[in-house]
C-alpha cells in the first residue's frame, strides 16, 4: 500500500478555512494618519478574580435565574405568579383588620408560611431544578471543574443562591404583613417582635427546603421530572405526616403525635418557632414540651441541612467527573 500523504504540516496550511486574523504588531501610523490595527488574539494580563468572587458571582447568577432575570420571558411566569399569590394574603389580612378593627393579625408571622405550604412548595419545586438539573443533565460540570473553583464551591454557591432566593421571597411576605399591621395602627412593639420571629422562622425554612429540593433535583435530571418529584415529595410527606399524627392521637400516643411533625419541613420549623419563641403553633399542631423536644427538633433541622449538603457534594463527586 503506497504511502504518499503530503509532507506533514503542509496540508493544513494550504487551505485555511477560517479567516486568519493578523497576529503581527500594529503598524505605526503613517504621517498621513493611515494605520492598520492588529485585531489578532489579545492576551490578558489584567486582574483575575479569585475563588471568592467567582463563587459570589455564581451565587448571584443563580439568584437571578430563580427569578427569571436574564432568561426568556416564559421562565419569569411561574416564579412571579407564585410570588404574587404569596403576597396577596398579607394584603387581604390588612384589609380585614381595617374592616373588622381587630388589634392583632388574623394569622401570625410564624403561622403564615404554614398556611401557604402549597405555594411555597411550588416555588421551590420550580426553582431547584433550574439551579442544578440543567448543568448535570447536559454534562456542563467538567467545564466548571476545570476552572479555579472547587466542587464544593459550586454546590455551596447553588445552595446559597436558592436559599437566599427563598428567604428573600418569604421575608418579603413577612415584611408585607408587618407593613400592613403598622398601617393599620397595630401596636408597634409587638408587631416588630413578631416580625423578627417570622424572619428567623422563614430563614430556617428556606435553608431546609432548599437543601431537600436540591437533593431531589440533583437525582432527577429531567427538569419536568424534578419539579414533579419535589412537589410530590413535599405534598406526600405533608399528607403522610398528617395521617400518622391523626393515627397516633387516635391510638392514644400523644407523645409520638407531638414528635411526628418534625418529619415535615414546615411543621419542623413551626415547632422550633413555637418552642423557641413561644408563639402559637399553626394548624393547632401539638409540639412536645420540654427541652428534649427542642433538642430533637433543633438537631433535626441542622442535621437535615447538613445531610443535604453532604449528599449534594457526594453526588457531584460521582457524576460531575471531568
Amino acid at each position, binding site marked *: *500500500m503506497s504511502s*504518499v*500523504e*503530503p509532507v506533514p504540516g503542509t*496540508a493544513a496550511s494550504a*487551505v485555511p478555512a477560517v479567516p486568519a486574523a493578523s497576529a503581527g504588531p500594529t503598524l505605526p501610523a503613517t504621517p498621513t494618519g493611515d494605520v492598520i490595527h492588529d485585531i489578532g488574539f489579545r492576551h490578558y494580563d489584567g486582574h483575575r478574580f479569585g475563588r471568592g468572587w467567582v463563587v459570589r458571582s455564581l451565587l448571584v447568577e443563580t439568584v437571578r435565574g430563580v427569578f427569571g432575570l436574564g432568561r426568556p420571558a416564559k421562565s419569569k411566569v411561574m416564579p412571579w405568579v407564585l410570588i404574587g399569590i404569596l403576597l396577596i394574603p398579607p394584603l387581604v389580612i390588612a384589609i380585614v383588620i381595617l374592616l373588622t378593627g381587630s388589634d392583632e393579625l388574623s394569622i401570625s408571622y410564624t403561622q403564615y408560611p404554614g398556611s401557604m405550604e402549597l405555594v411555597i412548595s411550588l416555588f421551590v419545586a420550580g426553582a431547584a431544578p433550574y439551579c442544578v438539573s440543567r448543568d448535570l443533565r447536559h454534562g456542563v460540570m467538567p467545564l466548571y471543574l476545570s476552572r479555579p473553583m472547587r466542587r464544593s464551591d459550586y454546590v455551596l454557591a447553588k445552595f446559597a443562591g436558592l436559599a437566599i432566593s427563598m428567604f428573600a421571597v418569604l421575608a418579603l411576605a413577612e415584611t408585607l404583613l408587618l407593613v400592613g399591621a403598622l398601617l393599620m395602627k397595630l401596636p408597634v412593639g409587638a408587631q416588630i417582635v413578631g416580625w423578627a420571629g417570622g424572619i428567623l422562622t422563614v430563614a430556617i425554612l428556606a435553608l431546609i427546603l432548599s437543601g431537600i429540593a436540591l437533593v431531589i433535583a440533583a437525582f432527577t435530571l429531567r427538569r419536568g421530572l424534578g419539579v414533579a418529584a419535589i412537589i410530590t415529595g413535599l405534598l406526600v410527606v405533608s399528607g403522610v405526616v398528617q395521617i400518622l399524627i391523626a393515627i397516633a392521637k387516635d391510638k392514644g400516643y400523644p407523645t409520638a403525635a407531638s414528635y411526628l411533625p418534625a418529619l415535615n419541613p414546615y411543621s419542623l420549623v413551626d415547632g422550633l418557632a413555637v418552642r423557641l419563641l413561644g408563639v402559637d403553633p399553626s394548624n393547632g399542631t401539638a409540639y412536645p414540651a420540654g427541652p428534649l423536644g427542642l433538642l430533637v427538633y433543633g438537631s433535626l433541622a441542622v442535621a437535615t441541612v447538613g445531610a443535604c449538603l453532604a449528599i449534594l457534594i457526594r453526588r457531584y463527586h460521582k457524576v460531575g467527573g471531568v
Partner: protein
Amino acid sequence: MSTLVLDHVSRWYGNVVAANDVTMTIGPGVTGLLGPNGAGKSTLIAMMGGFLAPSAGTVTLDGTPVWRHPGIYRTIGLVPETEAMYDMVTGWQFVVANARLQHLPDAEGAALAALETVEMVDAKDRDISTYSKGMKQRVKMAIALVHDPMVLLLDEPFNGMDPRQRLHLMDLLRRLGEQGRTVLFSSHILEEVEEIAGTIEVLVAGRHAASGDFRRIRRLMTERPHKYTISSSDDRRLAAAIIADGSADTVDLTSGNLAVQAPDLGVFVHALPRLARDSGIRLLDVSPADESLESVFAYLVAR
C-alpha cells in the same frame, strides 16, 4: 456471489430527502461509503440492511428485494452505529443469543468462532457494561459475523476506537474482503477509507456523487487541472523550462518547491523527465498534490 444493487432508490421523510435517486452496485471486496454529515449514509445502509423501505426504487441482493425478506438476514450482517447494548449480560451470552436467533445448528461454536475473529475471547465472560467503547464495537462485529454472512454492512465502525483497535479492525475487514465477501462500511475518516477500501461510493446531500477507485476518479475530473508538487536541484530553471514547454498552465515557486497546475496530466508527466534531463536538473521529489482521497473528496463535495 453477493451483490447489492440499488436502483433509483430514494427515501424521504416529508420534505426531507435523505436519499435522492441513488443507483449503485456493491460487489465483493471492501467498499467505503463516504459523505459529509447528513449526506444519507446511514439511511442507505439501513435500506440495504432491510430496516428501512425505500420511498422509491428497489434495493436487491442478488436479485431478491431486501425489504420484508427476513431470509436475507442469513446472508447479511449489520453493524449499526448506535452504541446502545444490553448492559446486564456478558459478551458471550449476547453473541450466543444472537447465534440462536439465527437458528444456527451449533450456536456456541459459531459464537466462539466469531469472538475469536474479533479477538474478544478473553473478555467474553464479563458484563457488557464493563466494556470500553472499542470492545462493545467488537462485540457488535461478532454478532454480525456469527452466521458467517457473505454481506457485511457497517455504519461508522471505527468510531471511538484507539489506533490499535482500528488497525485490528482494518485487518479484519481486509481479510473478509479478500475472502470474497461484500463488505461495505461508512466513515468520515478518510485515512481509514484510503487504507482498506478498494472502491469508494460518495454521497453528497443524498445524491450519489461518484463511484470507483479514487485515484482514477481524480483523473476523470478533467475540468480541474492536476496539481503537482516538484522538488529539484534547481526549481527556478525547471519552472522556466516547464513554462517554455507549455505543458503546464501555472507554476508557483512560493512554497519552497515547485507547485504546478497542468490541464493534461498525460502530457505533463511525459514532458517532465525529459525537461529535467535536457536541462541538467535533478528531480528529487515528484508527486501529485491533489490525488489524495481528501482532495478528491473535497472536490466532489464542492460540485
